[in-house]
């Protein structure tokens, strides 16, 4: 049973959101305020201008980027208590994505609310996040702060024998081999003497970005699910 009172506090414009073919952008933005008592025309006007949304164009004629810009405009202007952003940047160029991040942070600062954002550009969105929660097939595999997550893994590169010496007793997430060189993503924090040992073994040692870490966790999980002894990268 749907609850109208609760649902009106939600805004969930999907990545592949369909609109009425007969509606122009202007029609859609004219009707959306009826659904949200908290709607901000100021935000909607500002975003349509910044994204240069063509107001008279029918929804079916919009490009991928314009559809994303329209979804972002509706989601932020709605000021809904629970705002879902489903891959909001698809088709947007770098400057439009920067506008989106800037407006999202600005709106959140003025009108705090719960924003659930699904994204594949993890590093780009990392600056927006305070806490990271990684789900794998419905199970929480990691829940921690962004900084802790970034410190929670590192990448070792170099000749295979030396790399294996350094990571011998570590939790290896993925391995990637290129000729005689090996690149290993390791879960866990660097130890005090790791840098010294890496220098001695002529290894490159660097923190993994959040995206590298999440990707490595995903590959690790896939390998376990398919019961493969080697990682996907290793096979290639």
């Amino acid at each position, binding site marked *: 049973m749907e609850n109208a009172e609760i649902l*009106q506090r939600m805004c969930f414009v999907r990545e592949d959101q369909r609109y*009425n073919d007969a509606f122009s952008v202007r*029609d859609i933005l004219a009707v959306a305020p009826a*659904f949200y008592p908290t709607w901000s025309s100021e935000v909607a006007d500002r975003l349509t201008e910044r994204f240069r949304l063509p107001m008279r164009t029918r929804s079916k004629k919009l490009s991928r980027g314009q559809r994303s810009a329209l979804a972002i405009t509706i989601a932020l202007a709605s000021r809904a208590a629970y705002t879902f952003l489903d891959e909001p940047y698809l088709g947007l160029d770098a400057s439009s994505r920067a506008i989106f991040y800037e407006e999202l942070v600005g709106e959140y600062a003025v009108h705090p609310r719960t924003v659930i954002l699904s994204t594949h550009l993890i590093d780009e969105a990392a600056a927006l996040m305070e806490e990271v929660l990684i789900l794998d097939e419905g199970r929480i595999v990691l829940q921690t702060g962004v900084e802790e997550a970034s410190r929670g893994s590192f990448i070792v590169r170099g000749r295979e024998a030396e790399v294996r010496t350094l990571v011998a007793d570590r939790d290896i997430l993925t391995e990637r081999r290129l000729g005689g060189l090996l690149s290993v993503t390791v879960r866990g924090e660097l130890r005090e003497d790791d840098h010294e040992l890496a220098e001695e073994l002529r290894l490159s040692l660097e923190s993994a970005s959040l995206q590298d870490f999440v990707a490595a966790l995903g590959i690790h999980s896939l390998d376990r699910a398919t019961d493969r002894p080697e990682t996907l990268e290793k096979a290639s």
Partner: protein
Amino acid sequence: MTYIRRSLRLYLANRSWALYTPLYILGIMTMFSVIIAGIIGISVGYPLPDDIVQNMRYNGGALYAPPGFLFSVGVLAMNRNFSMALAFGSTRRDLWLGTSIGFLITSTLVGLGSLVFLALERATDHWFIGARAFDVQFLAEGDLVRTFTTMFLLAILSLYAGAFFGTVFRAFGTVWTAVSAILVTLALLGVIALAVWQSSLTSELWDSLGAWLLLNIAAVLALLAAAGSYAVNRRAVV
């Protein structure tokens, strides 16, 4: 009521689509009827002779012109508006109720628009040349109640039929939409077969009710389509 009003506003967001175009269609149908009568008059003279005028009394343009467009309005209202309404936090029930009020408004407008065209037709002595679009046999030749009721029912049946198939498509996909269209057609053919089989009863009903028999059938079909779209709408997913 606030929640239902939101869905009504969604339905009416594009006025041209929900309100004006059905009236344009009635106007264009009238214009074509007059032009065709005018072309006939080039060879037989004006005003049109009696035998031509008698033939024009059977002009079915008002019956054929609006349903196609209104069917598509019904499909889009329950299909594309469905995705929008749910994205904006509406419930399925509120969408259906708000859209139904919109359907009533559109159908009433079609009925009233038909009365206006009928009045103009009569005031101009059938567009000055004897052309007929609304003062015709199946609309009881100028009977205001029959004209309004027939055009209203035609409109609301078309809208709900579109809404039903649009909702079936949303809930079950292409295959089941085709299956439901086949089943509905078979059911209608079954009713016709029943009417032919029980021809004496059908004749009795026709004698007592006349054209109102067809209007009652249209009303029942509209109610069935409305009930079907409501029931299926509860299962539709984005």
